């Protein structure tokens, strides 16, 4: 099957133009983009029906090779009708949006914003905490805390041994070994 390069080039250009319009914020422009892209894809469909020029009819005196394929044209017609309906709907949406907010811009999702802001908030809080700890000379503080924890541990160990004291002098003496010097 031979395919016309013109149709394909046109389709590609339309897709490019339409794609650029679709990624804008204004609903009307997006609609334009969708219409343009839709036309591009219609051309692409048409390219599937073979060389242009022959009628899509089989009437007395024509050979099957001299007619073009009617099916892609039928599909294109279906697509055009459907695009008409969706165009009407999107236009109504754009109009309603203008009624409500004065513009047809599509804003970001609020809940998405909230999640993003929450992440920002957490990051900010972590940064502030780190900063504060650095200001308080964290090394000294950490050492102090470690020292304190060691003392508490020792005190608890002594208490435990006192509780274990069993009136047996020998055991108690053995148990009451002087605590090892902390390294």
């Amino acid at each position, binding site marked *: 099957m031979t395919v016309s390069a013109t149709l394909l080039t046109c389709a590609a250009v339309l897709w490019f133009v339409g794609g650029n319009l679709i990624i804008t914020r204004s609903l009307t422009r997006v609609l334009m983009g969708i219409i343009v892209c839709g036309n591009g*894809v219609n051309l692409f469909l048409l390219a*599937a029906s073979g060389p242009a020029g022959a009628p899509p009819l089989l009437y007395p005196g024509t050979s099957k090779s001299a007619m073009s394929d009617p099916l892609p044209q039928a*599909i294109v017609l279906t697509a055009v009708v*459907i695009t008409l309906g*969706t165009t009407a709907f999107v236009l109504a*949406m754009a109009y309603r949006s203008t009624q409500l907010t004065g513009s047809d811009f599509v804003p970001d999702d609020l809940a998405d914003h909230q999640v993003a802001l929450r992440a920002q908030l957490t990051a900010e809080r972590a940064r502030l905490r780190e900063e504060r700890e650095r200001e308080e000379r964290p090394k000294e503080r950490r050492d102090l805390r470690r020292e304190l924890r060691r003392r508490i541990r020792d005190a608890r160990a002594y208490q435990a041994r006192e509780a274990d004291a069993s009136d047996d002098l020998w055991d108690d003496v053995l148990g009451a070994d002087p605590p090892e010097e902390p390294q």
Partner: protein
Amino acid sequence: MNYLVPLPVLLPLAVCGWSVVLGPRVTRLHRVLSVAMLAAVVAIDLILLIEADRHGPLAVHLGDYAPPLGVSLVADRLAGLMLTVSGVVTLIVLLYAFGQDTAEGGGSAPFSFFHPAYQILVAGVSLCFLAGDLVNLYVGFEIMLMASFVLLTVGGTQARLRAGSTYVIVSLVSSIVFLAGIAATYAAAGTVNFAQLAVRLPDVPLGVRTFSEVLLLTVFGVKAAAFPVSAWLPDSYPTAPAPVTAVFAGLLTKVGVYCVIRAETLLFPGNRLSAVLMAIACASMVIGILGAVAQTDLKRLLSFCLVSHIGFMLFGVALGTRAGIGGAIVYTAHHITVQTTLFLAAGMLERRYGTTELTRLGGTARSAPWLAALWFVPAMNLAGIPPLSGFIGKLGVMRAGAADGGDWAYLLLAAAAVTSLLTLYAMAKVWNLAFWRAAPVHGPEDGEEGGGGVATAVAVRAPAKIPGLMTAATAALVGLGLTYTVLATPLTGLADRSAAELLDRAPYIEAVLKP
């Protein structure tokens, strides 16, 4: 029995036409008609399922054109099962919507759009399941999408417009990609009929075939909300009315999954993109559930859970074995039910307390124990606690993964286990915050919400009464979820036979192409 095949599409459309004739107010006649028709659709779906299970796929050629030329609708086991489950779910959600409707002032002006649009949505979903060619599938998608646009933006408030914009734009772009996929496939194989494509595609050069496959899978992936193209879902679902969110979450994404299964078995067998699908499944599972854990709004949390659990189904499909696809089918049926139930329960919470924000809820287990029970059972079901159907689905998929034994399969097994655990964590978080703890007292100190007045008003507001119909509908869906446990053997057997039929391909092709 073939003449029954188009009815699941035609009956809802007829009701929609009647509701225009009957006028904008929702009357009793209107309701009876809607419910009766959907009940009839469920009955037909069930007959189709049984017939397809007994005698192989049913195909009907509309207008009696010879097979590859006209429009064909096909109901095989997979389509029948999906139709039946979705039919029951849509019927129950409709009852729920009637309950909510009466509670909120009975068919007031903007909300009366709901019923016609809902019927069209049901017709579109049925058409997607029954479509026997790519163009018809495209039309089914579009019918479904147009209805869902209306349902998502019903009322036209600013929040819904914003959410709707995202959804509409993503859907339209994916429709364009779908058309491109159809064009590429048609140019390569000269047909759009599934059965004929299945015969012809193996002769198409590998590169061209892969191009079509990637385009189509991208579209179905967008519909199914698989990871790299899933960001639209949690953005757009939570703002819609509860029944709408519920039915979207239950059905629309599963239509995407169904199409992925159909494409991977019938059109592009051989499983060459298995590794890609596995990577997508893995990313969907893990990233989705991590998103869910971070949320504080119940509906958003559930939306992220939805994205994550799509990964399980894709895992089964990616394995490509009979056990894998069977597991994915069971999981899909289970997930349609349970996800809808959870959203309905969330809707009841919203109806009662006016919010689904977890930081504001609390004490529900004490003040409304039945509501807590209606939440708890499907939540445990979603997490996959053993006797419930979530466990059966997960077990099927994960056993198939272990049987496959590749590196990817084991990676995915680990991801699936982590995802299940995190789902349980997310559900426990909701349970603790919204149900278990004492109701939070909102003083003026939490003014960072933008004026403590709002928060206080929410906390002080007396819980609203929930209409009995809403409770009954939710309870019915919870019951349906429990039925899967009772009927586990027939269900897994049916899924296994469906998978065998899908992998065999011959029954489908014969049913369509043999006159």
